[in-house]
């Protein structure tokens, strides 16, 4: 298990599985006097699921919000597909965001729209040339992927917590992104539904060959979904490795997640 952060490369990614799609290097982010990220480094390769593990309030969500450009790091670089997101203008950022899906912790479905309208919303903005028939087919395909095709005309308020999460996942996947950022995908769900979400993450990753960063402190989710785990502690990438390495670790900072 690596105990230091990786040396990262700014090379343009190639098509091999080991090529990096996201490179986070020396990122600092501070809110007032609270230094949330300090010299944080992380690399995510093509078709790799990286779980960022950490306690509540450790800065995990801040990290992925910096990656998608919702927050700007105070210093350091975040390269996504070879582009430094903190230096992009709004139009270029919008272009790169079409390649990145983001699953919010609270789902963030538009509550004034039906499930269909929620899924159509990103499609209508980016795949402008598509006919209504094609849009309908994509919406149904996305909902079938999560087993909820029958909810297409329902309002978000009519759905259960697990269904909302799955619809949010369908919306995240509808533009067929290359990278997906999951913010606490299983938080607030019962264990059975949480495992269903884990399985969906794996299924969709295999189907669409996506790379993912999964933010969680749910160890079952880590075990089920992680190709690699990075522990965020005191704003730094404290440790990286396979789930099994973490499980067998004697480090007290790592062991506390398994107790």
């Amino acid at each position, binding site marked *: 298990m690596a105990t230091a952060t990786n040396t990262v490369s700014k090379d343009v990614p190639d098509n091999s599985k080991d090529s990096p799609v996201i490179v986070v290097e020396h990122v600092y982010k501070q809110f007032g006097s609270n230094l949330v990220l300090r010299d944080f480094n992380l690399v995510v390769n093509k078709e790799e699921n990286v779980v960022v593990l950490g306690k509540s309030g450790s800065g995990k969500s801040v990290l992925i*919000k910096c990656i*998608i450009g*919702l927050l700007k790091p105070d210093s350091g670089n975040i390269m996504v597909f070879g582009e430094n997101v903190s230096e992009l203008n*709004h139009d270029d950022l*919008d*272009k790169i*965001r*079409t390649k*990145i899906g*983001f699953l*919010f*912790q*609270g789902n*963030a*479905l*538009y*509550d*004034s729209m039906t499930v269909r309208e929620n899924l159509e*919303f*990103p499609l209508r*903005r*980016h795949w402008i040339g598509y006919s209504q028939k094609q849009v309908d087919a994509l919406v149904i395909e996305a909902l079938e992927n999560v087993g909820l095709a029958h909810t297409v005309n329902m309002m978000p308020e009519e759905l259960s917590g697990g269904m909302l999460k799955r619809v949010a996942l369908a919306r995240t996947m509808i*533009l067929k992104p290359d990278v997906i950022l999951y913010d606490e995908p299983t938080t607030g769900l019962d264990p059975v539904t949480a495992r269903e979400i884990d399985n969906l993450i794996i299924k969709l990753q295999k189907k669409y060959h996506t790379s993912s960063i999964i933010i969680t402190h749910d160890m079952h989710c880590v075990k089920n979904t992680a190709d690699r785990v990075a522990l965020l502690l005191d704003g730094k990438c404290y440790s990286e490795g396979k789930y099994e390495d973490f499980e067998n670790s004697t480090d007290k900072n790592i062991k506390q997640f398994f107790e």
Partner: protein
Amino acid sequence: MALTGSIREFFDETGSVARFTGRFFSTGMKPRFEIKELLSQCYIIGYKSLPLVALTGFIMGLVLTMQLRPSLVDYGVESQLPVMVGIAIVREIGPVITALIFAGKIASSIGAELGSMKVTEQIDAMEVSGTNPFKYLVATRVLATTLMLPVLTMMGDAISLFGAYIGVNIRSVTSFHLFFTQVFHSLSFGDFSPAFIKTFFFGFAVGMIGCYKGYNSSKGTRGVGNSANSAVVLASVLIFIIDLLAVQLTDLLGLN
């Protein structure tokens, strides 16, 4: 010390509103325009406010007439009641009361809607899906309030005058034709146009403040409640300030 803090807070807030307004012109007015959402907001903001504006307008016209009558009877100029009511409604009371009713309904609803969208990360979700939430949410709502309030004011004025006609006929008999002939003979273009033009500014202020408060809502249910509440208060105060400036300006231009 507290006074200094309040003054600083006032100037901070004023600066933030000015920046937000600047962003509306620099970002919100650039293509691509969200026409479908704009039409939808015009329907919600304009059409759905009509019953409230109509009811308050009718009552306002009726009550104003009934309150004015005794004074005019004392001076022996009861026949001038339609003229007086007409000028009062068209020049001042109609636009201001309609704008205040509109602010109470629309500024609070926009503040609460955008505030809850902010709190539940729906605005962030829009942004990460590559849609500019400022254009989609703010520009459309501000344009809708700016365009719809003048229309509502005209309708409110008409219904108010009808209420005044009913009010006149409670104690005496005046024909519909005579009442409205007297009203329109007393009104000139100079009475109507400044009152009409200022309603665009009232509408803009209501939309801008509602969106500003909602878009910058703090987290939690209290934050959303505060956004809705402060949107109404600030929008109402701005309506009076704009009205004051409009009256001064029309006076300077010799339109009064």
